[in-house]
């Protein structure tokens, strides 16, 4: 249970990483042309994808993802992984003792890996939870209601104007470093002090209420959970960082949407002067990390940019499509996992699963190229070539010669014969015409088998001819026997 969950998360982590990376590379371009809203949603979809341990099937939701050569690809991927199994199995199986020991060692290693994963997630989560609760307790303990009635009424009027009267309690607390919204169910707005100008106050409240309206607290909780589950994946950390940035950008966007440049500038000025206001000097925050300036610059640039940016609907659809492909691919990878089952554990040591991921990834990469708007038929051609190459590889690695086919058919025939003979062995002397008939038929079949046994061992004949001749003779005998049965029946009747 836990093992499969771990493997699922690992698979998702790896497959989604690719998507995260490509989106990260595209981000500067996206920022230029699309509103923050769409990237905000895209990161959210990715986060949800990372959270769910099972494969999303888009067919359930009613969106069928079109994969023109899906079945071919499935076959190819499975074929390759099968080929891998075939190739590596003899190596693993040869020294029997050597094969058993790695298995136990590997399962131990696997167990340790799962343990590390769980402990890491638990530590990550408890660290954040402890930090959050101790912080909230402190902030609440030192909080006091707004003292100046002027400030209080100002805040109230802004809230009414934004249509959220009395949804958020506003208090001051020396323990918060900057204005912030804290709490998931009933959020409170903490201000470090009340010495803000009217304009600063207006923008601070607006900014925080927009966060509240977007339900960004839940988004952050989602990001945190995803981060806790995928703490081992640096790409997920990047996703969380980017998404956090996007939350702010989208919020700023909403605050200044449809406003003049002057208004936007006033907003920036307000943030800037709020930063400059000395907050409580008792608050020692020693740890600082780079990126604060960068983020602020990005935000200001975004706020001040009056350029009309597109709605991201095509972009949105593209990402959904890519995600669909990803979902399909992880289904495929699960299918190949099933094929690998007997050696699942040591297969991960052998890197077999990694291999199948590689194939999937190269497929994904190719698929994405083919899906991109500017894709040429050449790219599609390349994709198809990859598929046929994989299929060829499979055929090459498991050729089914005519001799093998003959052996199969012949063995089945012999088995049937043996079973029937055994069944009638003690009825040799029966006078029943039906039994007599069967015994005669068995005798004929025995002759046929003897004939082909000889032919097979003497190897005089071409193996292809052998198969053909066997099928022919079998058919002839069957026809003969049926005819004989019919004539016997008519004899009995007359």
């Amino acid at each position, binding site marked *: 249970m836990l093992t499969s969950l771990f493997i699922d998360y690992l698979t998702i982590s790896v497959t989604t990483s690719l998507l995260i990376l490509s989106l990260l590379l595209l981000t500067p371009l996206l920022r230029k042309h699309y509103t923050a809203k769409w990237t905000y949603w895209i990161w959210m979809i990715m986060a949800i994808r990372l959270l769910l341990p099972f494969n999303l099937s888009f067919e359930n939701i009613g969106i069928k993802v079109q994969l023109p050569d899906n079945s071919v690809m499935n076959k190819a991927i499975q074929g390759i992984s099968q080929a891998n199994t075939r190739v590596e199995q003899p190596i693993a199986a040869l020294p029997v003792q050597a094969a058993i020991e790695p298995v136990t060692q590997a399962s131990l290693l696997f167990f340790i890996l799962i343990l590390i994963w769980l402990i890491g997630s638990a530590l990550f989560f408890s*660290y*954040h939870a*402890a*930090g*959050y609760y*101790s*912080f909230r*307790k*402190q902030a609440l*303990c*030192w909080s*006091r209601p707004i003292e100046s009635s002027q400030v209080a009424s100002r805040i109230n009027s802004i809230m009414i104007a934004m249509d959220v009267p009395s949804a958020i309690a506003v208090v001051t607390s*020396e*323990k918060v*470093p*900057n*204005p*912030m*919204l*804290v709490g998931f169910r009933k*959020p409170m707005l903490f201000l470090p002090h009340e010495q803000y100008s009217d304009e600063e106050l207006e923008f*601070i409240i607006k*900014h*925080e209420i927009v*966060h*509240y309206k977007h339900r*960004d*607290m839940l988004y*952050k909780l989602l*990001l*945190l959970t995803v981060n806790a589950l995928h703490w081992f994946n640096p790409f997920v950390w990047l996703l*969380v960082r980017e998404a*956090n940035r996007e939350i702010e950008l989208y919020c700023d966007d909403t605050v200044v949407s449809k406003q003049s*440049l002057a208004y936007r500038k006033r907003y*920036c*000025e307000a*943030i*800037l002067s*709020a*930063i400059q206001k000395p*907050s*409580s000097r*008792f*608050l*020692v*925050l*020693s*740890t*600082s*990390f*780079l*990126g*604060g*300036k960068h*983020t*602020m*610059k990005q935000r*200001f*640039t975004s706020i*001040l940019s009056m350029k009309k940016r597109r709605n991201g609907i095509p972009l949105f659809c593209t990402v959904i499509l890519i995600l669909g492909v990803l979902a399909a691919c992880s289904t495929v990878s699960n299918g190949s996992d099933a094929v690998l089952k007997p050696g699942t554990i040591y297969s991960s040591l052998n890197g077999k699963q990694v291999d199948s991921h590689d194939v999937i990834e190269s497929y994904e990469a190719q698929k994405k190229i083919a899906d991109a708007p500017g894709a040429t038929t050449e790219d599609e051609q390349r994709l198809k070539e990859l598929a046929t190459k994989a299929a060829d590889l499979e055929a090459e690695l498991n050729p089914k010669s005519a001799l093998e086919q003959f052996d199969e058919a012949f063995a089945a025939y012999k088995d049937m014969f043996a079973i029937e003979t055994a069944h009638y062995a003690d009825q040799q002397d029966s006078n029943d015409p039906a039994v007599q008939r069967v015994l005669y038929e068995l005798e004929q079949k025995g002759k046929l088998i003897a004939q082909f046994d000889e032919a097979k061992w003497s190897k005089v004949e071409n193996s292809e001819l052998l198969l053909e001749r066997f099928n022919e003779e079998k058919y002839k005998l069957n026809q003969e026997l049926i005819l004989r049965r019919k004539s016997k029946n008519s004899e009995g009747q007359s």
Partner: protein
Amino acid sequence: MENRLKRLPDAELEIMLVIWRNGQLVSSSYILDQLRDKRKWSLPSLMTVLARLIDKGFLYCEKEGRYNRYCSAVSESEYKESEGKSTLIKLFGNSVQDMVMSLYNGKAINKTDLSELRELIDKVEKEET
């Protein structure tokens, strides 16, 4: 008294905050009244905690007729200064940012960054004119 003040548990801190914010000598019944929303105290248990605070050197008590009146021996800022250095926030500082919606990440911005941001706004202004 020692240089470093002890960190107070929440219940004691709440009482101290009431006394600090009042700014004058207060009676125990006033404290009880002020804390009604936050915590249900019985008078005897409140008296115990007050006695403990006196022991710790945070309060002193003045007799005014029949009543005891309390006054802080440590100022709010003194306490905050010492608490600020030993607080858990320092340890968890970075994690909190991930869970609250703050207007800006204040600790990650210094003075030179501020002037750069200033320039950014001014630049737009110039382009405008």
